[in-house]
C-alpha cells in the first residue's frame, strides 16, 4: 500500500528527499575526506617529520649535547633556522624570509620538491640557494637570478614547491630560503640576540626505541639549564593528527548543519504531504484500517524515502570528497590520498535515514490521531494540531537528543556537542522568531492601495499549509552566514588597518645590534623618516616565582599558573617612564633602580600577571642570559597590545639592564610603499642582519589568509542556501495543485499570462526579500555585538554586503521559484472546471 500510494507521487517525493540528499552528501564528503586525511597522515607519518627524531635548541648545541647527539649514530643532518631579510639585486626587492642553512641529507623521508628537481641536492655543493616558489612569483623572479642573504649573494638554484610535513600556506607567513650550511658564517647573520633555532635530524635504520633518548634529553635539559625540544615521528603524527582532527570535527559540524537543514526541509515537506493525505488515510480508516496500519503506510514511505535520499546523498558525497582537497590543500602538510571510507558511508546512510525519520515523526504520529471522520469533512487546520502539547514536547525532546547525541559523536565531547545543540536551537529559534515577526508585520502594514498583482503575490505567502517560515529559516540562515562572515571580515580588517592611519607606525626594524643602532637611526633620518620608537630589548627567562623554581611550579599539578608563561623567553625593555600605550592599574611605577641594593621593581602587563597569578610584591628571579636578576612585582599595567610598536610583558626600570646583551627595535612610519621598499633596500645593504616588518605587507597576507579560511563558512552558507532553494522547489511542488488552481481561476476571471507571472514573481520576490531580511537582522545584531564586545569598534555595516547579499538570495529565490512554476502559468483555464486530482 505504501508503494502503491507513493508511485503516483514519485516526482513530488523525490523533491522532498533532495534536501536530505544535499545534507548527507555534505556530511559524507567531509567525513570521507577526514578519514582519507587520517589514513594519509598514518601512511606518511615519517614524511611529516622528514626524520626519525628532531632535536631543537635556541642556542648552538653545548658540547655535552653535541657529543651525545653524535654518539647516537645513524644518519644525521642539521638545519640552522632564523628569520632574516633577503634582497633580490635583480629588481631591488626585499622580503623578511625564513632562512634555513642545511647540512646533510635532510629530509631523510619524503622529498624536498624543487623546480628543477635536481636543485634540491645541488644547492648544497654548488653554493646556490633554494627560494620559495611563492616568493619568486611575487617578485617576478626565476631560477638563475640572485638572492642576497646577509653578506652573501647566492644564485637561485631552484624554486621550492613543497617541503615535507609543511603546509603550502606556511610560505605565506615566512617564505623559505634554503642555503648550504657551509656558507652560513659568511652571511654574518648569526649574532648575539638573534632568534635562531638549531635543529638536528636523525635517521635510524635499526628501529630503535626512542624512549631512552627522550629520557636522556630530559635529563640533559635539567643539567644544562637550556631548552631542549625534541620530536619523534609519533609525536609529530599525533600533533598533526590532532590539528586535522579538530578541522575535521569543525567541518563535520558544518556538514551536520546542512543535514539538519535538510531534516527541516523534509519535516516541512512531509508535514504538508501528510496534511494533504489525511483524507486518503481517513478513507482507509473507514474501511477498517487501524491507526497503526494507516501510520505504517506513511512511516514506510518516510523510511524508504529517507534511505533513498541518504543513499543518493552518500554516493554524491563520495564523489564530492574529490573536490575538497583543492579547497584545503594549501593548509595541509600532506598530499591527501583519497580512499573510500566505509565508516562515512555507513554513517551517511544511517544519519540520512534517521534524520528524515526524526523530522517526519510529528506529522506521522499526528496521523494516528486522525479520525475517520476526515474522510467526510475537511481538516482546516494543520494536522499537528491534533497532537497534545505533551506529545509535541516529547518529539522535540527526541529531536534535540538526536542532535545532541550525534554532535557529541562527531566532536567526541559532550560539552561541545551540548554547546552546538544549544547554538543550533538558539540560531534556528531566533531565525524562526524573526521570520514569523516579519511575516506578521508585513501582512499588517502592507499598503492596501498597492496594485492587485503586488497584494496577491504577497497574500500567496500566507496560503494554507504554506512553508514560508521554513523557507525563510533556511534561506535566512544562508544570508546570516554570508553577511556575518563579510561583516566580521570587514571589522577585522578595519581593526588591522592601522597602516592607513596618518600617525600610525608601519615599518618596524628589529635585531639591531647595539653598535648598529645609531647608524640605522641616522639612515632613517637621512631618508626623512621619523623615529617613532627606538627601544632596547633584552631576552631573559623566568627562573623562579615567589621563591619556587618555575620547573617545580610547572610540575605541580595543583598549580593553576599557566605553563607557557613560566617557560617562555621574555623579551623585556627598560626605561624610566611609562609610554602612552600603558596605563598603571595596581601598585607604583618606579622609574629607576639599583640591583646592588636588592630586588628591583618590575611592571607586569595585566595579561601575564593573570597567567602567572601575580600580586604586587611577589618575588621573581630572571635569568638574563646566565645572570640572575632578583626582582619583585612593583606594578601591574594595562598595555594596548594592538598598537604597532614593541610592547612588553615585563618592563624594567632604568639602571638594571643597561649592561646586559641587548638588541634594539626601531619603529618608523613611511608615507608610501615605494619609500618603505627603498628604506628596506638601503637598510639591507648596510645592515644585512637587521630584519624589517612591513606592516602593510602583513595586512595583505592576513587578508589573503582570511580569504582562504573563510571558505569553510562560505561552504556552510552555500549548503544552507542550496537546501533553502531545494525546500523552495519542494514547496512549489507541494503547493503545485493549489497554485494551478489559483492561477487558472484568475485566468478564468480574465487575468493575463503577464499578470499570473507577475503575481508569482512578486511572491518569490517577497519570499527572497523577507528571507534575506531575516538573516540580515540577525547578522547585523550579531555583528554589532561582536563589534561592541569583541573588536571594541562601532560597527558600520558594509552597504554592498547588504545589497549584494539581498540581491543574491532574492534573485536565486525568484529564479528557482519561477523555473519550478513554469507548468503553472502554462495551464489552460479550462482546468478550473475539472475535478482536481492529486
Amino acid at each position: 500500500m505504501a508503494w502503491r500510494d507513493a508511485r503516483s507521487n514519485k516526482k513530488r517525493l523525490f523533491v522532498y528527499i533532495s534536501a536530505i540528499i544535499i545534507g548527507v552528501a555534505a556530511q559524507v564528503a567531509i567525513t570521507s575526506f577526514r578519514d582519507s586525511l587520517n589514513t594519509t597522515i598514518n601512511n606518511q607519518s615519517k614524511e611529516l617529520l622528514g626524520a626519525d627524531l628532531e632535536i631543537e635548541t635556541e642556542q648552538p648545541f653545548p658540547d655535552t649535547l653535541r657529543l651525545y647527539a653524535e654518539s647516537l649514530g645513524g644518519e644525521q643532518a642539521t638545519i640552522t633556522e632564523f628569520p632574516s631579510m633577503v634582497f633580490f639585486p635583480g629588481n631591488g626587492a626585499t622580503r623578511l624570509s625564513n632562512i634555513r642553512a642545511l647540512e646533510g641529507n635532510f629530509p631523510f623521508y619524503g622529498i624536498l620538491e624543487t623546480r628543477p628537481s635536481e636543485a634540491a641536492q645541488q644547492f648544497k655543493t654548488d653554493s646556490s640557494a633554494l627560494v620559495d616558489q611563492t616568493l619568486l612569483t611575487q617578485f617576478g623572479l626565476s631560477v638563475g637570478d640572485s638572492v642576497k642573504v646577509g653578506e652573501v649573494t647566492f644564485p637561485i638554484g631552484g624554486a621550492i614547491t613543497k617541503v615535507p610535513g609543511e603546509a603550502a600556506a606556511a610560505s605565506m607567513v615566512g617564505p623559505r630560503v634554503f642555503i648550504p650550511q657551509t656558507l652560513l658564517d659568511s652571511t654574518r647573520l648569526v649574532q648575539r640576540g638573534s632568534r635562531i633555532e638549531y635543529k638536528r635530524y636523525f635517521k635510524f635504520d635499526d628501529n630503535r626505541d626512542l624512549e631512552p633518548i627522550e629520557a636522556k634529553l630530559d635529563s640533559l635539559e635539567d643539567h644544562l639549564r637550556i631548552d631542549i625540544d625534541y620530536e619523534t615521528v609519533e609525536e609529530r603524527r599525533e600533533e598533526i593528527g590532532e590539528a586535522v582532527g579538530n578541522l575535521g570535527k569543525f567541518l563535520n559540524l558544518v556538514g551536520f548543519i546542512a543535514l539538519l537543514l535538510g531534516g527541516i526541509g523534509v519535516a516541512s515537506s512531509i508535514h504538508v504531504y501528510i496534511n494533504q493525505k489525511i483524507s486518503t488515510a481517513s478513507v482507509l480508516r473507514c474501511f477498517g484500517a487501524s491507526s497503526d496500519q494507516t501510520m505504517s503506510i506513511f512511516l514506510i514511505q518516510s523510511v524508504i524515502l529517507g534511505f533513498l535520499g541518504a543513499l543518493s546523498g552518500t554516493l554524491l558525497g563520495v564523489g564530492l570528497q574529490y573536490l575538497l582537497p583543492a579547497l584545503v590543500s594549501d593548509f595541509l602538510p600532506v598530499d591527501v590520498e583519497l580512499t573510500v571510507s566505509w565508516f562515512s558511508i555507513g554513517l551517511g546512510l544511517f544519519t540520512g535515514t534517521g534524520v528524515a525519520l526524526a523530522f517526519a515523526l510529528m506529522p506521522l504520529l499526528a496521523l494516528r490521531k486522525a479520525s475517520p471522520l476526515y474522510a467526510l469533512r475537511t481538516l482546516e487546520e494543520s494536522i499537528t494540531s491534533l497532537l497534545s502539547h505533551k506529545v509535541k514536547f516529547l518529539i522535540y525532546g527526541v529531536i534535540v537528543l538526536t542532535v545532541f547525541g550525534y554532535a557529541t559523536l562527531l566532536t567526541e565531547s559532550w560539552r561541545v556537542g551540548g554547546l552546538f545543540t544549544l547554538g543550533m536551537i538558539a540560531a534556528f529559534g531566533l531565525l524562526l522568531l524573526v521570520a514569523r515577526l516579519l511575516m506578521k508585520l508585513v501582512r499588517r502594514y502592507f499598503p492596501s492601495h498597492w496594485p492587485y498583482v503586488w497584494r496577491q503575490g504577497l497574500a500567496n505567502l500566507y496560503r494554507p499549509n504554506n512553508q514560508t517560515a521554513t523557507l525563510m529559516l533556511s534561506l535566512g540562515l544562508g544570508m546570516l552566514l554570508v553577511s556575518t562572515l563579510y561583516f566580521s571580515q570587514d571589522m577585522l580588517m578595519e581593526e588591522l588597518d592601522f597602516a592607513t592611519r596618518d600617525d600610525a607606525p608601519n615599518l618596524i626594524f628589529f635585531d639591531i645590534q647595539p653598535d648598529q643602532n645609531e647608524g640605522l637611526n641616522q639612515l632613517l633620518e637621512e631618508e626623512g623618516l621619523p623615529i617613532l620608537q627606538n627601544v632596547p630589548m633584552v631576552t631573559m627567562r623566568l627562573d623562579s616565582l615567589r621563591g619556587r623554581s618555575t620547573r617545580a611550579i610547572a610540575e605541580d599539578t595543583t598549580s593553576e599558573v599557566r605553563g607557557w608563561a613560566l617557560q617562555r623567553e621574555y623579551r623585556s625593555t627598560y626605561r624610566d617612564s611609562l609610554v602612552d600605550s600603558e596605563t598603571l592599574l595596581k601598585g607604583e611605577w618606579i622609574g629607576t633602580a639599583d640591583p646592588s641594593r636588592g630586588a628591583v621593581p618590575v611592571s607586569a602587563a595585566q595579561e601575564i600577571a593573570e597567567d602567572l597569578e601575580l600580586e604586587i610584591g611577589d618575588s621573581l628571579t630572571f635569568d638574563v642570559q646566565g645572570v640572575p636578576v632578583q626582582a619583585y612585582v612593583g606594578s601591574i599595567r594595562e598595555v594596548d597590545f594592538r598598537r604597532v610598536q614593541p610592547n612588553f610583558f615585563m618592563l624594567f626600570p632604568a639602571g638594571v639592564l643597561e649592561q646586559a646583551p641587548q638588541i634594539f627595535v626601531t619603529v618608523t612610519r613611511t608615507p608610501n610603499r615605494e619609500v618603505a621598499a627603498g628604506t628596506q633596500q638601503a637598510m639591507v645593504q648596510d645592515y644585512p642582519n637587521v630584519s624589517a616588518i612591513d606592516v602593510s605587507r602583513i595586512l595583505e597576507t592576513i587578508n589573503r589568509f582570511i580569504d582562504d579560511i573563510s571558505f569553510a563558512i562560505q561552504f556552510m552558507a552555500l549548503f544552507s542556501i542550496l537546501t533553502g532553494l531545494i525546500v523552495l522547489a519542494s514547496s512549489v511542488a507541494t503547493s503545485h495543485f493549489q497554485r494551478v488552481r489559483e492561477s487558472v481561476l484568475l485566468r478564468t476571471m480574465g487575468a493575463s499570462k503577464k499578470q499570473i507571472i507577475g503575481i508569482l514573481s512578486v511572491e518569490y520576490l517577497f519570499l527572497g526579500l523577507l528571507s534575506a531580511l531575516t538573516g540580515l537582522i540577525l547578522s547585523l545584531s550579531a555583528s554589532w555585538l561582536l563589534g561592541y564586545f569583541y573588536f571594541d569598534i562601532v560597527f558600520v555595516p558594509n552597504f554592498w554586503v547588504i545589497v549584494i547579499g539581498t540581491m543574491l538570495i532574492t534573485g536565486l529565490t525568484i529564479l528557482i521559484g519561477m523555473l519550478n512554476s513554469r507548468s503553472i502559468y502554462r495551464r489552460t483555464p479550462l482546468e478550473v472546471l475539472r475535478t482536481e486530482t492529486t
Partner: protein
Amino acid sequence: MDSNPILEVSDLTQQFRSGDRQLTVLDHISFSVEEGTTCSIVGPSGSGKTTLLGLCAGLDRPTAGEVTLNDIPLGPLSEDERAEVRNKYVGFVFQTFQLVPTLTALENVMVPLELRGVKTAEVKEDARQLLAEVGLEERLHHYATQLSGGEQQRVAIARAFINKPKILFADEPTGNLDTETGGTIEKLLFDLNTINGTTLILVTHDLSLAEQCRRTIHLKNGAIERDERTGQPKMDQVNR
C-alpha cells in the same frame, strides 16, 4: 421579444487523444443564445456539458468550429485576448466556489475589476454593495476557510457580478450545497440575472434548477439531443 444573440456556437467539435484513441467529446454542435435569456445545459455524466461550457466561455480552443461571444469571434484570439474578453463580458460561478484562499471575501469580489486595473478604492464600494446584496455585509473581512459553503458561494456570485457581465456561466452552482442553501443561491442567481439583464448559462444535473431556465439544452454523447424552450418561444436554431 427578439434580441441579438450574445453567444453563437457553430459546428463546435472537441476531440482528445487518449493513448492511441481519439475521443470525441463534442461533435459538431451549433446553437445560439440571445441576450438576457436563461439557458441550462443538462445531460448525463460524460456527455460533454462542462467542456461545452468551457469552450463557450473561451477557456479553451475547440478542435473545430467557432464560438462568437458578444459579436467577438473567439477563434482568432490569443489566450490573453480571450482573458480580456472574459474579464469584460463574462462572469463565472463554480460548483466548488473557487475562492482565492489567501484573500478575504471583500478582496475576492474585487479581483475581476482589479485585474482590469481599476483602482482599489473605486472597486471597494461596489464590492461592499454586492456583498450586502447577497447578505454578507457582516463577513467582508473573513477568509474562505472561515465561511460556510453557502456563504462561499454567495461570495462567488457577488464576484461574478462585480464586472457587470453580459453573460454569466455557472457550473453546477448548487451541486455542493444542501437543498435549502441551494434554493437561496438559485434565487440569488436568477434575481441578479433579472436585475442586471445578464444572460445566464448554467450546467446542472438538477432538473428542477434547469426547469427554471427559459431554455434547456439536453446533451448526450457530445451532441444536442433536445433543445427545449419554455415561456416565450425563441428563434434559436438547432442544427446538427
